[in-house]
Every structure is written in C-alpha cells, then in structure tokens.
C-alpha cells in the first residue's frame, strides 16, 4: 500500500470522526438535565421578549433545523453567542487558546526531554541505586492519579511553601514592562506545567529505558564499544538514535491524551485556557460556549491523531515499502 493512499485513508477517518463528534456535540448539550434556556430567559419576561431571545439564540427552530444551522455555522467558524457573556464564543476561545498552547507546549517539551533523558540515564546505569530510585519515582508518579499529585502540589506551594502562584496565568494587575510581564507569566506557568511534567515523565522514562536496554544488547552496540568510542557516544549516537523512531511515534500517539489532560490541569490551577473555559461553561449550562470549547478540543485531538498516523507511516517501513523501497 502506498504512503499517499495510507494518508488519504487516515484523512477520511479523521473527517468521519469529526462529523461524529460534531453531531454528538450538538446532541449532548440538549440532552443534559436542566433547561438551558433558563440561563437566558427570565420567567418574568413578556412572551414577546422570550420569543425574541429564543430567536436570537436560534432556539425556536425544530431540532433538525437547529442542527443544520449549527453545522453550517461551524464551517463559518461561527460558534454562536455565549449565554453567560453574550459575546461570540469564537472570540472568547481565541483569547483562551494562546494560554492553553503555552501550557501545553511547555509541558510537552519538558516532559519528553526530561522523560527521554531520564530513560537514557537509568538504562546506562541499570541495576544501580540511581536506576532503581529514578525508575521507582517515575513509576510512582505515573501510577497515582494526576489530579491527586496536582492537589498535593497546590497545597505544598500554596500553603506550606508559598513561593509559586497557584492560580491564574498572570498577576492582577500585571507588572509593568514586557520583561517583567514575561517573567510573571513564567512564574505562573511553573506549577501547572511542572505538575504535568511530574505526572507524565515517568512513562517516557520507562519506555525509553526499556527500549534502550534492548538496543544496548544489540551487536552494533558491541561494535560501537569495540571501536573505542566514548561511552557517551555509544549511548546517544548509537543506542538512543536507533530507538528514537519508536519513541517519536509514541510521543505523537500520546499527544491526544495530553490535550484532554489539559482540561483537568487548567481547572485545578485556574489556568485561563480552553480547558477551564469548557469546564466553566458546562457548570453554567452555557451550551454554545461548551460546544465551542468541546469542539476545539476534539479538533485538536483529531489533528494530533492524524499527525501520529503520519509519523507511524514515516517510521514504519512496512508502510513505506509500497512507496518504492528504501528511504
């Protein structure tokens, strides 16, 4: 099978998934207990006012019409007005997205770098105290629930050692000057991003350690040592380099999970991002806002999945071979 056909098929799947999510997204908020119209419609209003409000929010049409309008609007990036703020959801999401991206990218970068480095380190010291200790710690943080560790950190740095902000994306009011603002944001980023790294590095470390140990048992590693290369070069240039493809594949495969994990992290640390927006919207039965945020997160997951599929395709020779052999 050629690579391009493989890609097309994956793209087709992604579109189907998006369609299902879209429909599901439409239905679920209408099926949830509680009447959302209560949010915007005061029983004291006159019937004319109620009708006018319903019309404004598109709630007077039959469900099927609502659905088609909803789909049509999605394609125009029109996610409707938020019930609670009466502002376009798209605009609100646009404000939130950079914060989420910042948290996500920071967490992701540090998790993979630290996870892989720890894996290489422990593999090179297999069976020693430092291996057992670091591997044990990684296993522990991997095994316990994320929110539990995050709440612990919150308590630790919010109460016992209050050196880190536990709330929000920046101080209010923000400090003057670009540099100070930048540092302030980083200061706020440390705890949420750090907690993500702590809970996630373990699985990368363990996976890297295991694949490294397997690679270190290969003949070409003995050759590399026999050639008199420094141990560091043997580890990084030969062992790590040869196991990087499966690791990279796995990283991309884990992206969707990291995106959805962001909702919990943002909620716990009151991070002003898309995840927290979604949570708040659900709590307030703000349909359009929740739908919009949900859709954005689902879109991110689907895109990450597609990226993972593409990387699989590049890394897995069985898929590449159809493209005319080597390279």
């Amino acid at each position, binding site marked *: 099978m050629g690579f391009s056909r493989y890609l097309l098929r994956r793209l087709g799947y992604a579109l189907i998934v998006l369609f299902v999510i879209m429909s599901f997204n439409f239905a679920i908020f209408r099926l949830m207990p509680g009447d959302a119209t209560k949010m915007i419609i005061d029983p004291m209003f006159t019937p004319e006012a109620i009708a006018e409000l319903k019309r404004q929010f598109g709630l007077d049409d039959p469900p099927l019409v609502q659905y088609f309008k909803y789909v049509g609007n999605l394609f125009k990036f029109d996610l409707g007005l938020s019930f609670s703020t009466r502002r376009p959801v798209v605009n609100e999401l646009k404000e939130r997205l950079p914060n989420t991206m910042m948290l996500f990218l920071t967490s992701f970068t540090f998790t993979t770098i630290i996870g892989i480095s720890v894996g290489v380190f422990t593999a090179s010291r297999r069976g020693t105290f430092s291996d057992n200790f670091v591997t044990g710690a990684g296993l522990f943080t991997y095994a316990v629930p994320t929110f539990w560790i995050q709440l612990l950190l919150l308590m630790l740095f919010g109460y016992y050692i209050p050196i880190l902000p536990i709330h929000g994306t920046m101080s209010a009011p923000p400090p003057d000057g670009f540099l100070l603002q930048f540092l302030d944001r980083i200061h706020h980023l440390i705890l949420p991003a750090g907690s993500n790294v702590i809970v996630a590095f373990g699985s990368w470390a363990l996976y890297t350690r295991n694949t490294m140990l397997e690679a270190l048992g290969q003949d070409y590693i003995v050759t590399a040592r026999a050639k*008199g*290369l420094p141990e560091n070069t043997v580890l990084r240039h030969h062992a790590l*380099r040869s196991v990087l493809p499966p690791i990279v594949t796995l990283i991309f495969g884990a992206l969707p999970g990291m995106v959805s994990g962001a909702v919990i992290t943002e909620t716990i640390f009151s991070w002003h991002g898309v995840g927290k927006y979604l949570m708040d919207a659900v709590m307030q039965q703000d349909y359009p806002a929740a739908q919009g945020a949900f859709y954005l997160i689902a879109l991110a997951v689907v895109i990450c999945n597609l990226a993972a599929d593409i990387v699989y395709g590049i890394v897995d020779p069985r898929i590449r071979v159809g493209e005319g052999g080597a390279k």
Partner: protein
Amino acid sequence: MALLEVRDLKMYYKTLRGHVKAVDSVSFDIERGKALGIAGESGCGKTSMAVTVLRLLPSNGKIHGGSVKLDGVDIVKLDDEEFRKSIRWKKISMVFQGAMNALNPVHRVGDQIVEAILAHEDVSHQEAVTRAEELLDMVGINPKRYKEYPHEFSGGMKQRVVIAMALACNPDVIIADEPTTALDVMVQSQVLKAMEDLRKRLDLSMILITHDLSVIAQTCDNIAIMYAGKIVEYGNVIDVFDHPTHPYGMGLVKSFPNIKAERTRVRSLPGFPPNLLAPPKGCRFHPRCPLAGDICMEEEPELIEIGSNSHKVACHKVDMLERGVDIWEQ
C-alpha cells in the same frame, strides 16, 4: 618477543549458579603478520577469549588473572579510558560473530567507518571520508555506496563493510570471530579471500575463530584447539593437521576426511561438552576420552611441548599418542 602474548588468561562469567569458567588459563603467542586459528566445539569459550582480549565483557564477565601483552605492554592492567583510546580498534580490532548485525541500522555505512577513524586519529572529517572510501574500495565495494544504509547491502557486502571498518585504523591485530559463518559458501570464500589478501598486504596479525577447520588450514599459520575453556593443542597448522596428538584434537581433525577439499562442520564426538559451571576434575576431556586413566580424573594436564616446532599438547597420555595410535578408530 611476540606481538601479542597471552598468558594464563582467566575470565569467568558470574551467574546465579556459580562461575562459568569460559576462559581458563589460556596462553598463546602471535607474531607480527601471522594468523592463529582457534577451533573448538560450540560453547568452548572462543568468543569469550576474544572479547576478553578486547575487554568487551558483559557486566557479569570478569578477568580473574593472567596477562595480555601487546608489544610488551600488559593491556589487562591499563585503565578503561586509556584502553579505549589507545588499544581498541587502534591496535586491536574485531570482526564479530554474526556480523550481520554489527552495523547500526540507522547510520550510513560510510559514517560508521569514519566514526572509528575520527575516534582515534587526529584527521579532518574530509580525510576520514576519503580513507573510508578507499577502505570500501579495498574490500571490493563501490565507494559510491558510502551513503547507503546497512539494509541496502547484502549479507556478504555487510561483512565486507565490517572488515573494511576493522582495518580503518591500521590495527596490529584483527580478531575475526566466525567472520563468514552466516554467509553462503560462494560468498564465504570471496570474503575470506578478500580478508586474506588485505591481511598479507598490510602485514596484519590475525586471530581467526571458526568451526571450519578447512578455513584455518587455508589461511592460518598456527592453530589452537580449545576444549572447555582451555587450549588443549597448539601448533603449526601443518604439524597439527598432519599429526594431531591430543585425543580431542585428533577427533576434530579426523572428522574432516580431507581438509583441503571438503567443507564440513566439526562432526561431534561421542558424549557432550562439559558444563563450564562445574568442569570435570582433572583433565576436562576425560569423560569423553577413550584413553582416560586414573591420573586423568585427578590431575589437570599442562600444555607441554612435544617434538619440535612448538607443537604443544595438554594430555597425560601424550607418550601413547605420539606413537600414532588412532584412538577414534572403532
């Protein structure tokens, strides 16, 4: 003084059930430009002996004594860093058993040669590349294939690349562990021939480990026959093949009806190779030896010189054997 002098070398693997005495008091010499063949059953410690010389031991393998003198310097005593820099590949290089997997699949073959050169010599990258291309050419591979990956090469070509790589730093000694066993017969002889030509031209010493006595007969000056971690017979190829004297050596050579013509593997002798965790007391071969007497079960025989030409044998019954009794006749 020989180029490489190995004396009483002992290397044991530590396992849960005790020490595996894979190399037990092994001694031999190699002169510059000469080749020593090492033969023996599977599991007798040939590979272990080779990796002990290069100190490439797995974490449970440890040298328990003896010396390896290269140009008079005991390289067992060098510290790790010095050994890595000044001995590995620069003085002693190795072609590994199962060299099919000796090349890293994610690096270009040429780069893997260049890397060895740059690790030991103070030359520019460009010079190293030029040298790598020459080396590929020497082993009969088009230097244009420098940039290809190992999976683009056939088995025989990979093996040539490995040999080219082993020659990259002009070593004094090259250890080849079953360099051709994984190849088909035609390719085997091509690769062996290429290696022999180069060795002669560069005046290299070689330790050639193989099951195939005919290969040793064709390429080596001396032969050492190992049994259960020890050398039981050692000598000039002609002496040993014409007058194999140790009962085991005799069995081994006799199992090759015609060394020059036939390519067969070592036919197994009756009985089983001993367990190296607890080798038999006395002579390790006694449980399988038709001549074994009381002394053989008690005392370990020394490797002593018989006749001339430094033909050595470790057997208590050597007098009997020198009279030419064919003990494996029946």
